[in-house]
């Protein structure tokens, strides 16, 4: 078990209400709200796959998909 690596953020724009909870509590400032007040990953390279955005979203609008890296880096 190595560090998980981000594959993608799946964001359901219809369910996102722009409350900003995920944006504020992301430890790496990966997320932002766009001009329509919907969340998007503007610095996805900084994502550490902690999935706190996914766990705190009141509307289940964001999912963090990660791939597990092995200890050998394969």
């Amino acid at each position, binding site marked *: 078990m190595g560090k998980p690596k981000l594959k993608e953020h799946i964001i359901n724009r219809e369910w996102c209400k722009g*409350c*900003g*909870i995920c944006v*504020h*509590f992301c430890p790496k400032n990966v997320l932002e709200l766009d001009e329509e007040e919907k969340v998007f990953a503007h610095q996805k390279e900084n994502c550490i796959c902690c999935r*706190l955005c*996914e*766990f*705190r*979203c*009141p509307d*289940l609008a964001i999912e963090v998909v990660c791939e597990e890296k092995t200890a050998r880096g394969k």
Partner: protein
Amino acid sequence: MLNSLLRAIEKLGLSKNEIVMVSGIGCSSRISGYVDFHTLHTIHGRALAFATGVKLSRPELNLIVPMGDGDALAIGGNHFIHAARRNIDITAIVMNNRIYGMTGGQYSPLSGYGTLATTAPYTNIDQDFDVVELSIASGASFVARTTTYHVQQMADIIRKAILHKGFSVVEILSQCPTYFGRKNKAGNAVDMLESYKTNTTSIGSKAKKENPELIERGIFAQKEIPEYCNEYNKIIKKAMKGHS
């Protein structure tokens, strides 16, 4: 709350057919419409009464009753204390946002002294309940408190509450930025979650000793006492003795 509940259920590996969610009336009670379990959306304050009926007739099912603070403790106050006293195997989740949000921001039994609400424009003079103390005094055999900020703890506590055989109460401090937040200048949803982070602490922590104002989080009671459906079955057997 829904998010943590679903993760708890996923971790337990329960099938959708093994779960019955019974709710009453309120913003929080709409939750039964968002899930694909057996669901009953019932009348204000009476979710626990309906759930008691379901549980007694089908004791093998897992009963989850999500309620708001007003639904659980004002309109349904008597159902709440007596379900706790009987120790029937139901998981009661009290989403405490300290206000009646759906109906327009009236003060609830959890609003607390000195707060503002549409029906308390000069501040509320009612004292609030302590849900944890009330539940323990009423006889609930599993009592816990957490917040919508502490999502990992919430999923863990809900999982334990569902596993517990007896009446479980989980109080979850929940934000209502629309009414409670706006009326009481508590800010938006983010600010309210920040306040749960700064104003709460684990049970018996050093921080609590230094600052008694902090609200404690964690499991306050967990005891094994006779469960109502089991006891009821014993009575049926006793009464049927000699009859087929």
